[in-house]
């Protein structure tokens, strides 16, 4: 069950250019959260910005959670200026978590840019529930935007990097790095990142008969299934059920239920 709580910021620092990590004291939320869920953060009191900002939960601790976010607009810029010791109002945990199953022998996490945010917590949960460290692919534009590499290595994960310019790891896309790993029977892929990247990862998985779960991002008003503002098109026959809510039906979806044609038409094939 989600809560709305004022949470004290216990740590807040830059985690790569334009990216921040914020740790919050939030025992009530931590007690109920699972990797893949998110929170709605009030970036500042008052009427502007009017809406909370959805943010993935990065890691879950006994007495709180951490968030990893990128400054993209006014809301995240304001949030980045809030100091340790101050409080922010947090609503959560919200949405459906990543499924984890000990029968899945080869979990692979594929992150693009800030899409890595929910994966440190997911890797920890996979390790504690299955005893297996997942493989991790981290892709970004260049080496300065690769996040969390050390965290995954510390957990015992095999990490593969890919950058657009080759400044770290393989030059190329996340989907190409994934294909290099030759996922096959027993593998399960978890993807989070730009839409075009998730689509490419989905295609690799379909071609190889591998299940893929993607965590989607959308602009949201309520974050809680009420406003119907964050929907995407799904692959369903029933017209009235075609629009699924990223917040409440997701943010994690089996990628085969997403109508990729519609997503790609909207972004013109770009992310």
């Amino acid at each position: 069950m989600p809560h709305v709580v004022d949470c004290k910021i216990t740590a807040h620092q830059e985690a790569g250019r334009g990216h921040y990590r914020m740790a919050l004291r939030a025992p009530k939320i931590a007690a109920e959260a699972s990797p893949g869920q998110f929170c709605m953060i009030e970036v500042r009191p008052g009427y502007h910005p009017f809406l909370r900002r959805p943010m993935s939960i990065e890691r879950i601790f006994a007495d709180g959670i951490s968030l990893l976010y990128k400054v993209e607009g006014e809301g995240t810029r304001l949030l980045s200026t809030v100091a340790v010791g101050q409080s922010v109002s947090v609503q959560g945990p919200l949405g459906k978590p990543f499924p984890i199953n000990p029968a899945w022998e080869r979990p692979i996490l594929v992150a693009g840019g800030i899409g890595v945010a929910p994966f440190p917590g997911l890797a920890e949960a996979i390790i504690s529930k299955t005893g297996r460290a997942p493989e991790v692919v981290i892709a970004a534009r260049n080496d300065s935007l690769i996040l969390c590499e050390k965290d995954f290595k510390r957990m015992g994960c095999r990490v593969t990097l890919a950058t657009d310019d080759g400044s770290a790891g393989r030059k190329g896309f996340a989907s190409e790095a994934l294909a290099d790993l030759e996922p096959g029977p027993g593998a399960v892929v978890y993807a989070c990142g730009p839409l075009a990247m998730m689509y490419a990862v989905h295609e690799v998985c379909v071609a190889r008969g591998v299940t893929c779960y993607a965590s989607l991002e959308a602009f949201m008003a309520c974050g809680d299934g009420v406003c119907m503002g964050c929907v995407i098109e799904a692959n369903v026959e029933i017209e009235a059920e075609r629009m699924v809510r990223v917040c409440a039906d997701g943010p994690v979806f089996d990628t085969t239920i997403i109508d990729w044609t519609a997503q790609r038409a909207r972004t013109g094939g770009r992310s």
Partner: protein
Amino acid sequence: MSVNLQVNIGGLVMKNPVTVGSGTFGYGQEYNNYFDVSQLGAITVKSLSLKPRAGNPPPRLVETPAGMLNAIGLQNVGIDAYLSEKLPWLRKHGCTIIANIYGHTPDEYGQLAERLEREGGADAIEANLSCPNVHNARDAGGCKLVAQSPERVAEYTRIVKSATKLPVFVKLSPNVMDITQPALAAEEAGADAISLINTLIGMGINPETRRSILSNMVGGLSGPAIRPVAVKMVWEAASVVKIPIIGMGGICTAGDAMQFILAGARAVAVGCASFRQPDTALQVVNGLEDYCKRHGVVDINELVGGVLTR
């Protein structure tokens, strides 16, 4: 000192004057995670249509200064799923229900109202004659809302009235030259109350992509940004009609709600403020009681229309 907060809205008794805006509170259950929603005077549910609706393609909403612009397009579960899946919960929890309805024709409004009464699906009906998001703005030659024509408001109101004995509220649009005309038309056609205001039609363009931010081109503006417009429209309508008014538009606090009550609203609805703070409506209930105590008012009804003309 005990304060009476109970109001009678055209035959609907509400234990306090606070409900929620249709479409901003789902079907009640969602926000019960945060507070006991049966404490509200009534729950107004998302617009119901005869068939489920998928709504508009995304993107459907964007934040604006002190508010938001939406073009949801009335995505809803439809009357059947409402009656079988949503209503039992609302009844079990003792909620007073205002069922907001939307149809393509007057006859559909009539069918919805008749069915809701027959199956115990509502304690009052709110006919949404003012949704800006169900017409394609590109080929409709602008938005044509029923609520923009006093004649059609009268026609739709009469049909809903003749389909049900439940109190009938008519939800009007601020996108008109003179709000007193549709308000009077609704009253003369037998409406038991009017709800004011639905969203103000607006638009946003991304200068970089040169595209409208919403896939439907235009959308409905809500939130604190529209509150002064809403208060003024309630005040104008209240000066001409005798039936009660449910005031809404940007209410975030009890002070905001008091503006509407003093302007002439007998009840108020909290809309998109719930998105930001799910228990806003309950805070408004508590704040209205405090307001009455602070001002030595024993019955909130005494304050309706009490704005001083300076």
